[in-house]
């Protein structure tokens, strides 16, 4: 992990031998782009512009080519994220087994929504597509480590342990303070197939979604209020105390 005091050139010098080893694995150097970004992200917590430029130089590409490639992949964060990246599966098998309840519970407990980071920079939260662990629905990943068969109690214990610094999964490096979201406005538009959200700050009249002035997405507001799928998780939820309501059903994130 790069210490806050360590500047980027020092990190680069430290990682250079490892970078060269990675480039040497491939017959064409450009193939090393993804592994190199993975490496820098591991040390910086995100794929910083400096790291992207360094990779461009190493692979003799233009920075634009690197950024274009990096922006294609959702596991590369181009802006800082929280120390714990919580990625909850919203695939069909999880959804029909109570993932919507789990997601609503997370949103309430964290006080944030999809693609957002808490103010203290500890948690980032994302609802992701099928994680290929449908037999253990509902599932999630914490910094890419799987957690299976989620229950609200597990979530409580997990978040408490993370706050106390005793959670089993190592926190991600954090070399810069995260903002409210790690997505750019362009990312969000691309994620919507390039279709306009309407002006930024204006909700989209079509689906009740939109992004606010910071580019923060406000979605699934209504979904959380609908009768939910019943499933195995639903049975587990039956015995649990706090009522499950979404933070987002109260108001927009203004």
């Amino acid at each position: 992990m790069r210490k806050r005091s360590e500047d980027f050139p020092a990190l680069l010098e430290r990682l250079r031998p490892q970078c060269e080893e990675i480039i040497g694995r491939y017959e064409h150097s450009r193939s090393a782009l993804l592994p190199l970004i993975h490496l820098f992200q591991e040390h910086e917590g995100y794929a910083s512009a400096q790291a992207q430029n360094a990779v461009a130089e190493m692979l003799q590409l233009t920075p634009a080519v690197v950024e274009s490639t990096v922006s294609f992949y959702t596991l590369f964060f181009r802006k800082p994220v929280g120390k714990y990246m919580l990625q909850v599966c919203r695939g069909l098998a999880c959804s029909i087994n109570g993932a919507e309840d789990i997601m609503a519970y997370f949103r309430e407990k964290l006080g944030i929504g999809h693609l957002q980071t808490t103010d203290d920079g500890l948690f980032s939260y994302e609802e992701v597509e099928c994680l290929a662990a449908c037999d253990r629905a509902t599932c999630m990943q914490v910094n890419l480590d799987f957690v299976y068969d989620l229950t609200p109690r597990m979530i409580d214990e997990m978040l408490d342990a993370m706050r106390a610094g005793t959670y089993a999964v190592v926190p991600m490096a954090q070399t810069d303070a995260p903002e409210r979201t790690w997505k750019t406005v362009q990312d969000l538009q691309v994620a919507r197939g390039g279709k306009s959200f309407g002006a930024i700050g204006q909700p989209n009249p079509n689906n009740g979604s939109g992004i606010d002035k910071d580019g923060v997405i406000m979605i699934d507001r209504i979904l959380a209020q609908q009768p939910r799928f019943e499933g195995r998780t639903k049975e587990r939820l039956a015995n649990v105390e706090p009522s499950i309501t979404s933070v987002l059903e109260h108001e927009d994130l203004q």
Partner: protein
Amino acid sequence: MPVTKVLTAGIGEADLRDIDVYRKRGGYKQLERAFKTMKPADVLEAADKSGLRGRGGAGFPTGRKWSFLPSNDKPRYLVCNCDEAEPGTFKDHMLLEETPHLVLEGILLGAYGIGSHHAYIYIRGEFKRGAEIFNRTIEQARKAGLIGKNLFGTGYDLEVTVHRGAGAYICGEETALLNSLEGKRGEPRLKPPFPAVAGLYGMPTVVNNVETLAYLVPILEKGAEWFASVGTERSKGYKIISISGHVQKPGNYEVALGTPVRELIEIAGGLREGRKLMAIQPGGGSSACIFEEHLDLPYDYESLAKAGTMLGSGAMVVMDDTTDFVKAAHNMVRFFAHESCGQCTPCREGGDWLETVLHRLVEGRGVPSDIEMLRRVGHQITGINLCPLGDSIEPFLLSVLKRFPEQFEARVLKETVSA
């Protein structure tokens, strides 16, 4: 019990990540035998004769896929596709983490079979742990002299490289995967040329699924005839089926192709008490649903195709009467809209608009024309994109819309404001 353990043998009983354990169980014997006593063409012939078809989704005969490689002196590559992200599928995830040496042996056999000296395995970015496990697997194999120069004293060099993706379903499409492996955006290429002619770095390349390659090991061990003797006329051998959703014992079950759907559900523990079966998505997120009347359908490529759906990756999601099919359809369409790479307009825009309309219906704010629009829009997306992702958007939606129209109609606003 119709569950047969071929690839899944030993999982949960022994630590198959340990090369010594794997070897004690007969591991790497086929590799040694192939290198010492067989020609690459013999491996191809075994694959061809066994009737093995691609287990990733397309179901293309593996031997035939290999035979498309041109006979020239260009370097050729074998790429193992472990970018498992088809909704409902979790078999490669298990194979990678639980029996990585079997996967590696399959890759090495495949590489030898096509005459490749450098094989790659493309592992989904989310499988960070799986990639770590596989890197250790490779190191163990290297120490044992199974990877590297002059294997088994035959003068054959073979290298294996792990390449981790970074979160893109589309990279499971083979040309998108190759682009991603070349360090580019994971956008599918225009075909032809097919990868067999111009694949990785423009060289002849074969991309095979994890499960496909792993089956080469038992096929060489027990013979192509053994594999071809189970299953049906054109769907031969075994297949790992990932069963999830509203069943009591979701999991991966290895069965002979052609096992009736009803039996598969029973193997997975059946439905929950007092629940009624409503629909089954039989072949991953891209497949149309089958229903109660299809329970006796044999689970094989042809029977499912005849029923208007497909076997795909072998992922069965079972849905009972608690399922809200408008939400399920929205969920499925949202997946494809999210994962569309954006190159082809029909897929990019069509998926997105379908998602918008379905979102409106989920909220109960549909307009009367929405249902008809859902029926029509899908046809304008299918068949006119570079890759099959666009074709995958509508099958689930159309099948449940046809079966449960009342659920969709109930979400249309009753009162409309007259102008």
